[in-house]
Structures are given as structure tokens and as C-alpha cells.
């Protein structure tokens, strides 16, 4: 056996070492995640690694991590290609690629982890290394965004640590996801949900997301949004068992959090002025949908449920589409784009809104199916409105991207071939994937009926109409960055920690006042040695005679 699961996280590290020696290796980093695809095709058995931390096991055991591995590999590979062009002239490119590769290692490791410790190892590595991507660019905005990102990431890490330990204890020391079916405690569930939620970025744990995405390089935003947010979702999926008293009780709450977040983020996003910020809010919104899927699964816990495949598909769908948009936004803000570029740009945007014949249609259809089967069937109409809202948000993004074209210099040329082609692959993915993956195709064929088609199309058409009207009326939004309470909080936290009042115990002996007393005694006793001693002798004799 030449290639095995444990090689997957090692290969990026190998690339890193090579790059430290020969910096030009950075042009070939896109190759680093690809061996994983070979493994998926080849399908070796899952492995246990007793040499490593407790319980270490790697492999693939469900459609969810299968799909998530695909999406991670595809995203990291294409984004690497994209970044190899955009970061070519970066002063700190070695630093960028180092964090990039570390992040990639973590992400790939966590996806193929079959045990909580390995997952946590990968998750932490990814999370912390991504700080280097967020705060990569110089200036105060990236620094602030990075600080908030890191604060929340560390908070998340610690909550996951607590949840992880609590969970291992609850399961009696079992260290494999497949054995984790025991009921979960409330505290454990909330720790894990919050910990991973801080990464997944659904409302209300999205604080860092709208700050971090705009300041990160485009390729980094693409993997952040496409792959790393999914890692948070995957964490919730793997760590929290379905169909236990706690999760059944939590299900509705979480479902409505997701639903509310999906709409809230659209409203918040529409008020933004920057394409990448809007895209970030769109991610927040989409994470709401993924959360809803998980919540529904918690209520049933059916291992054969279509929800499992839905989660996998939704993840893949959102990852490629959103990554394409982020990379597109990056191109739009630095290169002159022609009409066919814009045409291609709308494809992933509308796919997210559920355009027929795209992955969006497949997942929306399946999603509606699932909701109507569940106890939340009443919220079905809201989903159509949700699609409309998504479409509205993405149209707004496209308009903002178009606007940003005015700001770039006249000299900027068309995008480079490599960057363009990598973006092209992702942009076309929403229609290519259904042709390649049976599950998508299956759903897509179901949507090819009039009723389904209209159900998918009317929200998009309505959104286009509304946008057109709005731009005619030139509705100006004047809400500024007030929404970013996170930045303020993170500064306050820093201040608070530095000035935290701690008692200090310092004992100072103040002997100076006694100095002259001491001197007097010394002088007295040295001058009067004889009389004092003789006197004392008599005194002692006397007192002893009395005492006895």
C-alpha cells in the first residue's frame, strides 16, 4: 500500500517543508490536496493509529464526510491555484503560504477524522492557522478583524475542549464517533454547539465573519467560507448525536435559530456597501439552512434519512458556489471583467438562490421535501421567501461588484489565465456537478416538472424585479458599520484583561523607625556590659529563687 489516509494531512506539510527550502514550490501547492481524491476513488480501509493521541483513527464512514472531503479538496486545490497568481507579488507570500498549508492540513485532517481527538487536532490547526490568512494584509482593519477572529476562535476551541471532555466522559471513555450514540448532556451539547458554531458562523455566532471576509485575500475568503465554515457544521454533525432527549428538545430551538439567522443575515447584508461583506452575510444566511438540516436530523435520528445526503449535498453546493463568488469578487475588485465574465458570475449567484438545472435546484428541492416531511412543515412558505431573499442579496452583491469596477485603475488588464480558469471551474461547477454526481442528478430530474420549476423560479424573478425597482428608486442605505458590535467588544475585552484588578501581596518591613532604638540599645549594652551583666545575674538569681 503506497497511499493511505494518514498521508493526506502529511502531504501539505511536506509541501510546506519543500517550500521553505525552495519558495517556488508555492506554485504547485494546488497539487497538495489532490491525493485525497485518489484515495476516495481507491477507497482503502479506515485505519487506527495507536501511536498518536488517544483514539486516533482516520477514514471515511458516511456520505457527509465523503462529500465534505471532496469539497475541501476541490476548494483548497482550486483556491491554491487562484492564490498562486494573486499572491505572486506579495511581500509576505511565504508567510501566507505557510498559514495556508497549515490550515489546509488541519482541514483535511478533520474531515477524515473518525475520532474526536483527531478532529479537534485538525480543527484547531485549521482555525488558528486561518488567523494568518485573515490578518495577512497590512493595515488596521485586517488586524482588528483578525483579533476578533482569533478571540472567538480561541473561545470556540476552549468550548469544544470542554464539550469534548464532557462528551468523552459521558460515553464512558469511548473514542470513536461511531460509538457516540449515548445521550448527550445539556451542557455538553451547548458547549459543542457554541464552540463549533463560532466557526460555522450562523446567527448569532457570526460576529467575526462579516469583518474577516472582506479583509482576507480573495482565495482565503473562498476557503474560509467554502471549506472552513463547513468544518464547523461537520463538527456539530459528528459530535452531537441525533435522537437523544437533549437533541430532540434542542431541535426546534436550533431550527428556528437557523431560520431566523437565514433571514436576519439577508437583511443585515442588504445594508452593506462592500461586495465581500455582503457575501459574508450571505454565508451566514446559508449556514442557517445547514443548521436547519441538522436540527431536523436531530429530531429523527434516522440513519437512512435523506437529511444526511442533503447535508452533504448542501455543503458541497454552497462551498463551490460561494467560493466562486468570493474569487469573482476578488477579480472584480482588481481586474477589468468583460460581459461574459459577468454572465458566468451570475451562475453561482443564482445557483445559491436555487436556479433550475443547477446544484441549487437539487438541494432546494430536497430541502423542501425534508421540511414538509418534518414537524416544521408550516414554515414551508418561508423557504420560498428565503430563496427570494437569497436571490435579492446576491443580486445586490453582483451590483456592488460591478460598482467596484469603477474604482480600479485604468491600467488593470483582464484576469490572468490561471486565475481565470480556476475561477471558471468553480463557477461552472453548479451545473457540472449534477452531471457528475448521481445524487444531484436524481434530484434535478425531479425538479423538471412545471410545478417544481415555477416554485424554484418565481422567487428569483421576483428578486430581480425588486432589485430593478430598488435601483430605479436608488434606495440608499445609510446604516453604517454599527452592526459590528464585535469589533468594539473585542477591544473592550483586550483592555479589560490588561487592566484586570489583581491583588498583589507585597510585604515591606519598615525598620527605619526602629533604627535609632536599636542603636541606643546597642550603645547602652556595649558601654555598660559590666554593670548590666552583673545586674542581670543578680536579677536572674533572685527571680529564680522566688519562682521555685
Amino acid at each position, binding site marked *: 500500500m503506497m497511499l493511505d489516509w494518514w498521508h493526506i494531512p502529511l502531504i501539505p506539510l511536506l509541501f510546506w517543508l519543500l517550500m521553505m527550502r525552495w519558495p517556488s514550490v508555492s506554485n504547485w501547492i494546488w497539487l497538495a490536496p489532490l491525493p485525497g481524491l485518489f484515495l476516495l476513488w481507491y477507497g482503502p480501509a479506515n485505519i487506527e493509529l495507536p501511536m498518536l493521541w488517544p483514539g486516533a483513527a482516520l477514514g471515511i464512514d458516511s456520505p457527509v464526510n465523503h462529500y465534505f472531503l471532496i469539497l475541501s479538496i476541490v476548494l483548497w486545490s482550486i483556491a491554491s491555484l487562484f492564490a498562486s497568481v494573486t499572491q505572486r507579488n506579495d511581500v509576505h507570500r511565504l508567510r501566507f503560504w505557510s498559514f495556508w498549508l497549515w490550515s489546509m492540513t488541519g482541514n483535511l485532517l478533520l474531515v477524515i477524522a473518525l475520532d474526536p481527538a483527531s478532529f479537534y487536532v485538525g480543527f484547531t490547526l485549521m482555525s488558528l492557522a486561518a488567523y494568518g490568512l485573515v490578518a495577512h494584509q497590512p493595515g488596521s482593519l485586517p488586524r482588528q478583524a483578525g483579533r476578533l477572529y482569533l478571540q472567538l476562535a480561541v473561545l470556540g476551541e476552549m468550548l469544544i475542549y470542554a464539550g469534548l471532555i464532557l462528551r468523552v466522559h459521558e460515553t464512558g471513555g469511548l473514542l470513536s464517533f461511531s460509538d457516540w450514540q449515548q445521550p448527550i448532556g445539556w451542557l455538553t451539547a451547548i458547549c459543542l454547539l457554541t464552540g463549533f458554531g463560532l466557526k460555522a458562523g450562523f446567527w448569532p455566532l457570526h460576529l467575526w465573519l462579516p469583518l474577516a471576509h472582506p479583509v482576507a485575500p480573495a482565495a482565503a475568503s473562498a476557503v474560509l467560507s467554502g471549506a472552513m465554515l463547513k468544518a464547523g457544521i461537520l463538527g456539530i454533525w459528528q459530535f452531537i448525536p441525533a435522537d437523544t432527549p437533549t437533541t430532540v428538545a434542542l431541535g426546534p430551538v436550533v431550527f428556528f435559530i437557523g431560520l431566523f439567522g437565514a433571514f436576519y443575515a439577508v437583511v443585515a447584508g442588504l445594508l452593506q456597501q462592500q461586495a465581500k461583506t455582503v457575501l459574508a452575510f450571505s454565508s451566514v444566511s446559508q449556514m442557517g439552512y445547514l443548521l436547519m438540516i441538522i436540527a431536523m436530523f436531530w429530531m429523527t435520528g434516522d440513519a437512512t434519512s435523506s437529511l444526511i445526503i442533503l447535508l452533504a449535498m448542501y455543503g458541497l453546493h454552497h462551498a463551490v458556489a460561494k467560493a466562486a463568488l468570493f474569487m469573482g469578487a476578488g477579480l472584480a475588485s482588481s481586474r477589468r471583467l468583460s460581459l461574459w465574465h459577468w454572465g458566468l458570475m451570475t451562475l453561482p449567484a443564482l445557483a445559491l438562490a436555487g436556479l433550475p438545472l443547477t446544484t441549487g435546484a437539487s438541494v432546494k428541492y430536497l430541502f423542501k421535501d425534508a421540511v414538509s416531511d418534518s414537524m416544521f412543515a408550516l414554515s414551508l412558505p418561508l423557504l420560498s421567501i428565503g430563496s427570494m431573499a437569497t436571490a435579492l442579496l446576491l443580486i445586490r452583491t453582483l451590483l456592488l461588484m460591478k460598482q467596484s469596477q469603477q474604482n480600479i485603475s485604468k491600467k488593470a488588464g483582464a484576469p490572468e489565465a490561471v486565475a481565470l480558469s480556476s475561477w471558471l471551474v468553480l463557477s461552472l461547477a453548479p451545473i457540472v456537478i449534477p452531471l457528475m454526481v448521481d445524487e444531484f442528478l436524481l434530484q434535478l430530474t425531479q425538479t423538471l416538472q412545471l410545478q417544481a420549476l415555477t416554485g424554484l423560479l418565481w422567487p428569483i424573478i421576483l428578486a430581480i424585479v425588486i432589485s430593478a425597482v430598488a435601483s430605479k428608486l436608488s434606495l440608499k442605505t445609510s446604516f453604517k458599520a454599527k452592526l459590528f458590535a464585535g469589533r468594539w467588544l473585542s477591544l473592550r475585552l483586550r483592555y479589560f484583561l490588561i487592566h484586570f484588578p489583581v491583588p498583589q501581596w507585597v510585604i515591606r518591613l519598615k525598620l527605619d523607625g526602629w533604627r535609632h532604638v536599636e542603636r541606643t540599645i546597642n550603645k547602652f*549594652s556595649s558601654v555598660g*556590659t*559590666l554593670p548590666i*551583666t552583673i545586674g542581670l*545575674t543578680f536579677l*536572674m*538569681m533572685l527571680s*529564680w*529563687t522566688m519562682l*521555685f
Partner: protein
Amino acid sequence: MNAALVSMVVPFFAAMLVLMWRPQQQSWLVIVASIVSLLAAMMALLSVIDSGPQSLNLGGWESPLAIRFQLMPVNALLIVTTAVIHLIVVCFAASSHHCQSIKQAFWPLALLLHGSLVALWLSMDLFNWYVTLELLGLAAVSLVTLAGHKALRAALDYLLLSLFASLTYLLGVVMLYGQYGTLDIALLATLTEADRVTQTALLLISAGLMLKAALWPLHLWLPAAHSSAPTPVSALLSALVVKAPLFILWLLWSRVAPSELAVPMGFWLALLGGGALMIGGWSACRTPHLKTLVAYSTVAQLGYGLLALGLLLHWQLNDLQAALWLFVVAHALAKTSMFLAAGEIQASTGKKRLNSLRGMTLTMPVALFAFAVAGGSLIGLPPSGGFIAKWLLIQPMLIEPAHWPWALLVIIATLLSAAYVFRVVSQGFRQSSVSATATEHGKSAQWLALLPAILVWLMALFSEPLLQLMDVFSA
């Protein structure tokens, strides 16, 4: 027994020889005499180990008339200690560059001191002790005066107080003789009763002895005398001379005094010991002069002896004898080392103050090391002789919750001693502004100063035979 007598007589004889013959190289003669005395002392110790306590009536008369010498494990050990320290000190005096100016009178006086000490250890009756104490005191005072006019005042105080102490001692002895008609310890032990006269006599004797031993609070003369004396003399005085009255005090109260008197007296002695530990330690921590610090340390350390003696009497616990005498031996060795090192340092810098020690780890590493190692034993750091003694002392304190307050006293005393020892040592680590270089000459004196410090740490390794020796005795 004969070996012990040899150990006693040789110094006297050598002293006479030095006085009469006045050879050019007096030091060699003295050193040879000390070696002979040491060898004899060791043989005496071996014979005690082999065949137990022995006694000898001088002139063949039976008690109570005779002058009786007795050799027991404790005084055999003390004789050996005396001889060892004396040998080291005279070697130091001969080799130290800074002791060349010492007057020729040092040699016979030191021998006289040695001889009378051995005689005192061997004696077992109150009058003999009086005589030897007088001899010892005179020799000591004369030795102090060798330092010249600056020591005269201290020497005079010492002399007068010593005479006063002798008077009270003699008064007490007379009262006892009047009451019981004998001065032999063994005989008195069988006769004494707890009446008023005996009590007064014992108190008088004790007061005199305490004055001579500089036991707190009658210690005022000691720091001045010991710190102003020439270095080898300071070592002899602090290490040996002050221990002699303690020996008598111990025999007096544990043998002669009836337990009705000894038990309450023990309590007071222990309290005084505690006072010595506190006040002596505190003064040592505060004094700005190096040799005065060492002298105050003697005051404090004698407190341990007094504490051990007091508790021994108070609790009627013979186990504490081992603690008491190990304290004495450990302190004697450590203090010798400390005084020699301090004297050597002070002589080479020419300054008395503590802050003249800057940079000593470079210029006089061995002397400072000797000081530190000896200090370790005074603090009671394991594995040193001081530690063993302290260990034996605190065992009975700890076993009964009611005795725990005494242990607190020991804790504070230990901390104080650590404070004054490290006060000196840390000065030595201070960088000196003058770029000092190690001086080659005077190395042998420094090593001689280190020798007793090493011996006191080696005591810990031989603690088992030492303790067996003590057990033999108390059994």
C-alpha cells in the same frame, strides 16, 4: 584512660617547653604536640568504645579526697573535637599570611588553653572544674589581649566578668561542700536533696557558669571579645571555651540536682535558650561587621544547646543528650571554620564591614565557600552535623501536640540563622567594582578554614556510630 591523660599532658608539657626553650620555629613544635594530643585523644575514644567508661583516681586516693578523672563517651568525643580543632587552628595560625604578626605568646597560651580544656572534660568534681575553669579563663583573656590595644577593653570586661563568675561559682561550691561534704559528682548525685541550700548553691553555680558560657542574657561580653580577638583565638574561644561551662552545667543539673529542682529549672533554661536564639539571631542579622556577626551567631547557637539542655531536664528525656552534644560538636567545627574564614577575609581586605565582601567568590572562593558550608550546618541543612542535632532535638517536640510551640521556636531560629549566613554569602556574589583577581597566597589558610566545615558535613555520614556512642553513654 592513659591515652586521655597523654592528650591532656602533652599540651601542658609542650607549653612549658615553648616557654623555657623558646625555639625559633615555635609553630612546628606546637603542631607536633597537637598531633600527638589528637592521636592520643583518638585512642582514648577507641578505648571507650571498646571497653566503656573508665575512671582514674589521681594519686591513688579513694574518693572523696581524690582528684578523680573519668572518661566517658561524651567527653572522649569532646576531647577529640578539642584536639582536632586545636590542631586546625594552630596549623591555620602557622600558615596564614595574616597571622605572622601574632605575638609569640600565642603558642604557649593556646597550648595552655588546650590542656586545661582537656583537663576540664576529664574532671568529675566541682573543685577540679573550678581550677580548670580559672586556667581556661585566664588563658582566654590573655589570648584576647594579643590583638593589641583595640581589644583591651573587651578583654578587661571579659576578665572582670569571668572573675565575678568564678566568685559566684565558688560560693555555690562552698555551700554544697558545707551541706554534703563532698564535691565529687558521682557522690553528690547520691546525696542531694531538694532543699533551699542545695537550690541556692545550684543557682549560684549555674549563674556563674552561664556567665562564663555567655548564655543569653549574660552574653554581652562575648561579641566584643570574640570579634576583637585575633582570628585563631576567636575560633578557639567560640568553638571550644564557651562549651566548657555548658558541660558542667549539664552534669550538674542532670546528675547532681534532684529532679524536683531540675524540672522547673529546665523550663527556664529552655526559655533562655529560646531567647538566645531569637535575640542572638536578630543581632547577627543586623550587625554591620563580619566578625561581630559570627560572634552573635555563637550567642544564638549556644541557645540551641541551652534549649536542648533545658528540655532534657524539663521533660527528663535522656534522648536529648545526643542532640545536645551533637550540637556542641557540630557548632564547634562549624564555628571554627566560620571564624577562620571570616578572619582571613577580613585580614585580606583590611575592612571589618560586611560590604567589603563584594566579589569574594572570585578573590577568595575557598574562604567564602568555607563560610557558606559551615553556615549550612549552623542553619541545620541536611546532611550536616547541625542537621542531625536539630533532627534529634525536634523529634520529641513533634511527637506531642502540646510540645509544638517549641518547634515553632526552632523554625524561627532556623530562619534567622539562614538570614545571617546568606547575608554574608550573597555579599560575596555581588560584583565588585574593583577588578579583583584570585590571590594565590593564603590558599592553604583558606583550605584549612574549609576543613572543619567539611568535617561537620561528614558527621552526617557517620551519624550512626556517633549516635551509638551516645546511646552507650545514656544506657
